[in-house]
Structures are given as structure tokens and as C-alpha cells.
């Protein structure tokens, strides 16, 4: 329980925000930060803990978003079961792609490539298939009732995404301390050695990918309900694949808080860029790409790593003094 304390404190702080400010600008910003933190946590589970760097998490995000929207618009389903089915659809896709890819033994660059290809195939299919609204996209009808999972105010949405992030934080925290988590990290560090010690590496990776996809899909479902519009470029576009990996890498790969920290920093940076340079297309992404390169070059363990270094520096026992005296003597 003590180990859960930092998570609970962070959640309590975030939960207090709507009590302090009712500003839609602040809430919109934080909703987006939390959304990226959620999808990023999904990526982090597979990429950070499992060492499988996906470049195509848009595949899961988009599947969740499209399932939510299409089931409501074309099949008249209520929003709540539509969201649940959206998460399931994303998880199922993760399991299928994971089974295909990991059974074929694809690792490293090849894994990144093939996930990218899956996302692109889905994007092209979604931009021509009639069921997704093809090039026009899908618009969810405005119906501001809680039964339809739509709200006039930003506050309920804020608490919903915060709850989802809370679930993702606790889930990853639990996995970190579980046998499954230990297997996952073992596979990341040395797959062959882990397999030699009896870990079913393929199954572990497929499991991680399924959970990872479910989290990303949950983000997609939320996106669809929050903005009420998606098209192929939004749902399956590369932007979300990049956000999903940027947040945990900037925050700290393979740490529970990495994605949340990273999302907060990256999104603040994006807003600052917009404030300074206006809404110029592409400029925020230039900054993101640059941040990605800089973080890998100078802080490969992200902000979490920097904080750990800082703490060690502050708490370091004072061993520096004896040599100082020695030089005086």
C-alpha cells in the first residue's frame, strides 16, 4: 500500500484541479495531456517494460475510436457498450497482430516496421471503406446526456479520463511487481536467456501487446466521445503513434510515471510553441522530433532518470571532504 502512495497523491492532485479552476482552456489542455498519458502508458507497457518499440500504436487507438463511433452511428448501439466493445476490439487486434508478429520472431527494427505497416494499411482501408464514412469521416450525433456518454461541461470528461489514467497507472504498477512483469523485463533484457530459463517469451510478449493495445484503444474510445468526430487521418494517422512513444520516452521509459510526466512536459512545450509562434502547421512537431532526439542523446532515461540522478546527488553521503583536507595538508 505504501508503494501506491505516490500514485494516489498524483491522482488526488489532478482530481483537485476542477475544484480550483473551471477554465475550459485548462481542462481541455489537461484532458489532452491525460489522453496522451493513457495511450503512452499503453505504449510503455509493451515498449518500456517489454522492449518492443511499436511505431504503429495508431492501429489500436484508431480501432477503439472507430468501433465506438461506427457502432453508435451505423448500428444504433448505446455509447457505453460501444466504448466497452471498442476497448475489446483494440485488445483483440493487439492479440492478433502480436500473435502474427511475435510467432514469426520479428524483433527490433522489424517489429517497428511491421507495426507501422499495419497502422498504414488500416488508415488506407478506413479512408476508402464505406462503413467508416470513407474520406468524409464519422460524426457522432450530439446528444448531451450521461446515458449517451456526452456532457455539456468538460468536468465529467476530465474525471472519466482521469479514472482511465488511474486504472492504467495502477495496472502498470501491479504488473511491475508481478511475476508477469518480471518475465516481461527479462524478455526485454535478454530474450534468449529468458527463454532458456523457461519463460515463454512469445506468450509474454503477446500478453503485453494485448494489454497495451487495450489501453491505447481506450484512449481512442475516449477521443471519439470527447470530440464526436473522427476520420482516417485522426484515428489511424501517424501523429498518435508518435505521441504514444514520445510521452514515455521523454518521461522515462519503463517507469510507472514516465508517460504522465512526459505527456505533461511535451504538451506544455507544444502549447508554449503555439503561444510563441502562433498556430503554424508543423512547428510543434518539429519541436517534438527535436525533443525526441535530444532526450535520447542526453537523457536516455527521461525525466524520471534525471530526477533519480538528482536525488542521488542531493542525498549523496558527504564523501567529498576527506580529499579536500588531503589537498590542504
Amino acid at each position: 500500500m505504501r508503494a501506491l502512495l505516490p500514485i494516489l497523491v498524483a491522482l488526488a492532485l489532478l482530481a483537485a484541479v476542477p475544484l480550483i479552476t473551471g477554465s475550459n482552456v485548462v481542462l481541455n489542455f489537461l484532458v489532452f495531456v491525460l489522453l496522451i498519458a493513457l495511450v503512452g502508458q499503453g505504449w510503455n507497457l509493451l515498449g518500456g517494460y517489454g522492449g518492443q518499440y511499436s511505431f504503429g500504436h495508431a492501429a489500436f487507438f484508431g480501432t477503439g475510436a472507430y468501433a465506438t463511433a461506427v457502432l453508435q452511428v451505423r448500428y444504433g448501439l448505446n455509447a457505453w457498450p460501444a466504448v466497452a466493445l471498442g476497448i475489446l476490439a483494440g485488445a483483440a487486434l493487439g492479440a492478433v497482430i502480436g500473435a502474427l508478429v511475435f510467432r514469426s520472431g520479428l524483433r527490433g527494427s522489424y517489429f517497428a516496421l511491421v507495426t507501422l505497416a499495419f497502422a498504414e494499411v488500416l488508415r488506407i482501408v478506413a479512408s476508402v471503406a464505406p462503413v467508416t464514412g470513407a474520406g468524409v469521416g464519422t460524426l457522432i450525433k450530439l446528444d448531451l446526456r450521461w446515458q449517451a456518454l456526452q456532457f455539456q461541461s468538460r468536468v465529467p470528461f476530465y474525471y472519466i479520463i482521469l479514472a482511465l489514467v488511474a486504472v492504467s497507472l495502477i495496472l502498470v504498477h501491479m504488473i511491475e511487481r508481478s511475476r508477469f512483469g518480471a518475465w516481461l523485463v527479462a524478455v526485454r533484457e535478454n530474450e534468449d536467456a529468458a527463454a532458456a530459463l523457461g519463460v515463454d517469451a512469445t506468450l509474454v510478449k503477446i500478453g503485453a501487446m494485448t494489454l497495451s493495445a487495450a489501453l491505447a484503444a481506450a484512449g481512442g474510445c475516449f477521443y471519439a466521445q470527447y470530440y464526436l468526430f473522427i476520420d482516417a487521418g485522426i484515428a489511424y494517422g501517424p501523429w498518435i503513434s508518435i505521441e504514444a512513444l514520445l510521452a514515455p520516452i521523454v518521461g522515462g521509459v519503463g517507469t510507472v510515471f514516465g508517460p504522465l510526466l512526459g505527456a505533461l512536459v511535451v504538451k506544455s512545450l507544444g502549447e508554449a510553441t503555439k503561444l510563441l509562434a502562433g498556430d503554424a502547421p508543423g512547428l510543434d512537431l518539429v519541436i517534438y522530433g527535436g525533443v525526441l532526439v535530444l532526450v535520447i542523446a542526453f537523457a536516455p532515461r527521461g525525466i524520471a532518470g534525471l530526477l533519480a540522478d538528482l536525488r542521488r546527488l542531493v542525498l549523496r553521503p558527504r564523501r567529498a571532504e576527506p580529499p579536500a583536507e588531503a589537498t590542504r595538508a
Partner: protein
Amino acid sequence: MLVAALMLSPTILIPAILNGLMTGAVYALVALGLTLIYGVLHIINFAHGALLTAAMFAAFFANRWLGLDPYAAAFLLTPLFFCFGYALQRFVIGPAAHGEDRNILLVTLGLAVVIENALLFAFRADTRTLDLPYGFDTIQVGPAFLAVPRVIAFVAVIAVTLVLWLIMHFTDTGKAIRAVAKEKLGAELAGIDVAHIYAVTFGLGTACLAVAACLLIPSYYVNPSAGNAFVLIAFTVVVLGGMGSVAGALVGGLFVGVVESLSGLWLGESLGQIGIFVMFILVLLLRPSGLFGERA
């Protein structure tokens, strides 16, 4: 589909195949750069598409601002992009990656995002085309009418591949590149500057893109994401032809060009594009052993 294939007369089929070969030649050249970099550095360069786009913009503006014909611009842009690629590997990718494969992936991805969006920022999402006097000229080959720029591209790609092959086999630098590709540590012990050879290889790969861009621009358009269309095809070609194989890239490129042309003929434009991705995924899933042959 097979029935449909048999029913198509050679007067349709032969031009489709020839056009496919012409397109495939450019794919081959883009793939050549990719496979060269993979063969030596053992990394997949995710910035390849963005670098191609940058080269296409360079070729475009060399014509608009300096009045250079794209084919003449190739002689200026190729050395320029060689230096750019060299510097990128030597001063950015190499130092930033700390020698870890996963980091290199992310650094090249980050570079791709920066380059593509810097172009978007500078030139907006507009699609631009050059109007050249010979842009729509055709020559007749048997039953087929082929666009002149595409025929020039085809011939030029064969020539570039030949030059590259000669460089790799008959110059000291080429021999050093092959030595590093085969046995990095051994090459280092023999006195080869591995960081320099890595950068030279990356430069050569980027130079291929400059040539490809100059060959493409007379008959193609350019916008900030134009290169992406080619790069996943190039990945497919490289995977098909065998990672690191120059001959494989050439043959694979021509093959993919023909497949795309024929599937476009039978399935329509957008589904033809999916055909390439599906082929790519299938090749990766079904022949992974062939892919890892050299690495293990």
C-alpha cells in the same frame, strides 16, 4: 483474377509491365540507399522518406530559383546530399544513439518528424509540380508509349547501380565499407575508422535519394509527405531483395514496380497501394529467417 489476367490482351499487359519496370527503377534506387545503410550500419533508417522529400524540394527549387534542369541539378545535389548524410550520421545519429539499436530507431524517427514538419512549416501542405518542356513527351517501345522522363530514370538508375557497384568493389573506401559490413571489430583492428565509414555509407545512401529525387521530379509532384509514398515501398523492396543486398534491391524494386502496376490495373488505384503493404507484411511474417540471415 487469374482468368482476368489471361483475358487481358498483350497490348494492355506489355505497356503495364514496361511502365511498372520504369516506376520500379526509382523504387530500386530509393531502396538501394536504404539497403546500403542497413547492410553496413545494421539500422533501419526511418528518416529515409523525409530525406527523399527534402531532396525533391531541393530539386524543385533548384529549377524554380536557379533555373537548373533537374537532370543537371542531380550533379549538384548528389554531392550536397552526400555531405548532408555524412554529417547527419557523424554528428547526430551516431553520437545520439550511444550504440544502441533501439535508440537509433528513435533518433531516425525523430529526424524524420523534424525534417518532414520543417518542410511543412516552410512550404505548407501545397502540392507542387514542375512544368518542363519534355514532361509529357513519349517514345514508342513496341505497343507501349513510355514517358520520356521515366525512360531516362530507368537508364539512370541502371547506371547509378553500376557506379555504386564499381565503387564498392574497386576503391579503397568501397573495400573498407564491405569490410566494416562483414566484421566491424576486425575492420577497426585493421585500422579502419569505423565512425567515418558509417558516415560515408550514410552519405552514399542519402546521395542515392538526391539522384532519385532529380529523376522523379520531372514526372512527379512534391509536397511535405511525398517521400513517404516511396519509403514503405522501399522497405518492401529491401525486405524482398534481402537486407543489405545491392542486386536484391535492384531486382526487388523492378519486381515491386511491376506488381504495383499490374495490381493497379486489376484492382484499382487505392487497393493497389494496399497490395504493396499486404505483400510487405506477408513477406516479413512468412520469411523472417531469410531476413535475419546476415545478422545472426
